[in-house]
């Protein structure tokens, strides 16, 4: 994709300023409806999910005490993986968004919640809620666009390091929670000046303390409690963490990377109105189609569009308002980016692979028929003969 402002077929060119403000007013009305009807049913929902998650975690860990017995290992590992996914996605992420603050329950509140994750909630809330949700898909402002280690937009500059980004992305998926913690710390930016940055040192200390506590739990205490089954319990916990990381990475990658999601220029958000902000959120996210279980396990980020429009509405309401939101897309002539989980994952991965090469190279590689042509492309890539605009267009 290319920033929306540079596109020849700009998908919002047909909307007048008034249209955009009307659209904003209609979205405000949807929001107001949900807030007016928030109540006992929603509170019962989140409490049920939390209770179920904790019960599942407890029973899975109990099963793993006898993880030498293969069926117990299998069931315990599966249960723990699901519990960890629920804890991060449907509970942690959403509670820390303040979706349940209206209940005034100090136990389920964005200011008190801590999650089963390497990044301390305080840091994550800053980089996610304040930066990503405010500057969604603005090139140069929203670091979620490639997490600073990948190029996921034609308008992001290509550097040779991007050649490895399919590998980086896979490694990041496996160790996603640590990737997020490093990202929240802005490790890349802060590393060189770490010695004289007391704020960074403080945050790094908090992250390390969190990681130590998490590791002690999963890789020391629970295995030791299993006695002879220590090695198998340790393996189970490692697998559960890996599954959780792979799953959440996939779901989150589907939120902004698939084809059809738009990006925006830095200067385009100067003086942005409420309506324009809504419009950017509508076009800057993609949904995942699926059944109730998919939505629950995705923490309802399968309704990423609705979530980005209303990040602080209770997650169980996103699917209820989705038809109304979709109707607005149709009425205002916009494209509601959605697809099945496999198709969205493939689409996102394709982009990561395609953009690991400079713009246009991927298509050229596909058309390479002779060894000489391959050498030519490779030579350009390695910088011996940088591509010119004419050549790229040829």
């Amino acid at each position: 994709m290319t920033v929306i402002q540079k596109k020849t077929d700009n998908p919002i060119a047909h909307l007048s300023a008034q249209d955009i403000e009307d659209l904003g007013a209609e979205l405000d009305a949807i929001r107001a409806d949900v807030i007016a009807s928030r109540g006992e049913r929603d509170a019962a929902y989140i409490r049920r999910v939390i209770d179920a998650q904790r019960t599942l975690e407890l029973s899975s860990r109990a099963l793993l005490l006898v993880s030498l017995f293969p069926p117990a290992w299998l069931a315990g590992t599966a249960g723990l993986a699901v519990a960890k996914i629920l804890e991060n996605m449907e509970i942690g992420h959403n509670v820390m968004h303040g979706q349940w603050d209206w209940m005034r329950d100090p136990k389920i509140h964005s200011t008190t919640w801590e999650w089963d994750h390497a990044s301390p909630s305080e840091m994550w809330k800053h980089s996610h809620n304040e930066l990503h949700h405010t500057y969604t898909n603005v090139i140069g402002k929203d670091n979620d666009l490639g997490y600073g280690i990948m190029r996921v937009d034609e308008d992001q500059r290509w550097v040779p390091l991007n050649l490895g980004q399919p590998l980086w992305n896979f490694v990041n998926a496996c160790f996603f929670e640590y990737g997020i913690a490093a990202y929240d710390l802005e490790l890349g930016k802060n590393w060189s000046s770490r010695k004289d940055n007391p704020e960074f040192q403080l945050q790094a200390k908090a992250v390390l303390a969190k990681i130590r506590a998490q590791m002690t739990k999963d890789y020391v205490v629970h295995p030791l409690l299993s006695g002879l089954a220590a090695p198998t319990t340790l393996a189970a916990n490692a697998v559960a963490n890996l599954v959780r990381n792979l799953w959440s990475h996939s779901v989150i990658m589907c939120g902004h990377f698939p084809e059809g999601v738009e990006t925006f220029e830095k200067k385009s958000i100067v003086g942005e109105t409420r309506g324009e902000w809504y419009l950017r959120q509508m076009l800057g996210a993609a949904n995942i189609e699926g059944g109730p279980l998919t939505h629950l396990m995705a923490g309802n980020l399968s309704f990423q569009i609705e979530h980005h429009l209303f990040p602080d509405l209770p997650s169980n309401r996103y699917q209820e308002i989705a038809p109304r939101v979709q109707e607005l897309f149709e009425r205002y002539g916009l494209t509601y980016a959605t697809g099945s989980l496999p198709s969205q994952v493939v689409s996102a991965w394709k982009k990561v692979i395609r953009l690991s090469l400079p713009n246009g190279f991927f298509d050229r590689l596909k058309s390479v028929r002779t060894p000489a042509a391959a050498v030519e492309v490779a030579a350009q890539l390695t910088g011996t003969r940088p591509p010119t605009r004419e050549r790229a267009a040829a």
Partner: protein
Amino acid sequence: MTTVLPIRAPWREATRALRDGAVKLAGFVATPLVPADYLDLLSPLHSATELRGRIVAVEPETPDAATLVIKPGRGWRRHIAGQYVRVGVDVDGVRLWRAYSLTSPLDRPDGCLTITVKAIPGGVVSNHLVRRARAGTIVQLDQACGEFTLPETGPAKVLFVTAGSGITPVMGMLRNRDDRLADVVVVHSAPTPRDVIFGAELGRLAENGHIRLVKRHTDTDGMLDAATLEDLVPDLAERETWACGPLGLLDAMERHFERTGRADQLHTERFRPNTLVTGEGGQVSFAKSGTVIEVDGATPLLEAGEAAGVLMPSGCRMGICFGCVAPLREGAVRDLRSGDLTTAAAGDGVLIQTCVSAAAGACDIDL
């Protein structure tokens, strides 16, 4: 007869070390949660840090009042007759806290406590408790508090003046009466006979000679005032008095006792703060939660913050218990009861009672 053998010190130390170790281990196992979060799944009343209670029964008293029998959790300490307890109830998903007088005998065999709630028109919590609360529901509790109690050595003669649900703390005292309440007059006022909470029980106490009961019905007798009270209780001047009821009644009582030079003989319990003045309003920012709102000069900061989703500590909501205190980092607030202005310069962190303070200009609160 059984004798308890003293445990030898080394054993005691060993058990303590073992227990401390177990607690530490449980902490490692549960992180980032605490072990209590998992225990709550099985037994919500078990927690010693989060005091809760389970509603065991809801017993109707009058058409618009009911007594809630609540089994308190493990951390509950005894109360003193006349005190109130703060109860946190989830109404339509939102946790709301209110204070209610305890009406139960201290030595109830089942260990339950009771509160008696009158549904006031428009009262979100009181109507919920009287009409919708069901046995089995978990509520949040605080320890009992309040100064509306009898002194250690009781006065020779006692007068209780109550109106409406103001009878509740007094019933708490009457049900726990000892020789401190040998000569008691109860003047109770309610709109009609059927509105009298504990009507039958008060009648029995009077029949058995434990109290002299003077019933007044405002629909026919008019509002109770100090002059009438002197007629109803001829030895009023000799009686140390406890009064609980609407603000008008309490104000009249206070004026009378002040005039007769007996202000120290009157004890009052207010269920609502006495708002004298209103501030000017302003922009209020809550530093930790990052919430910024415009608030008028009549709304307590506690209510304004709660409405905006800020996790506000709260207590009696009438300026007594100091459970709602928060640091004012910068700005000006006005005490709704007295009109006193409190200002804080940047970095001051002046502690203010949010339940009786309203914004008197821009405020920055550390919540």
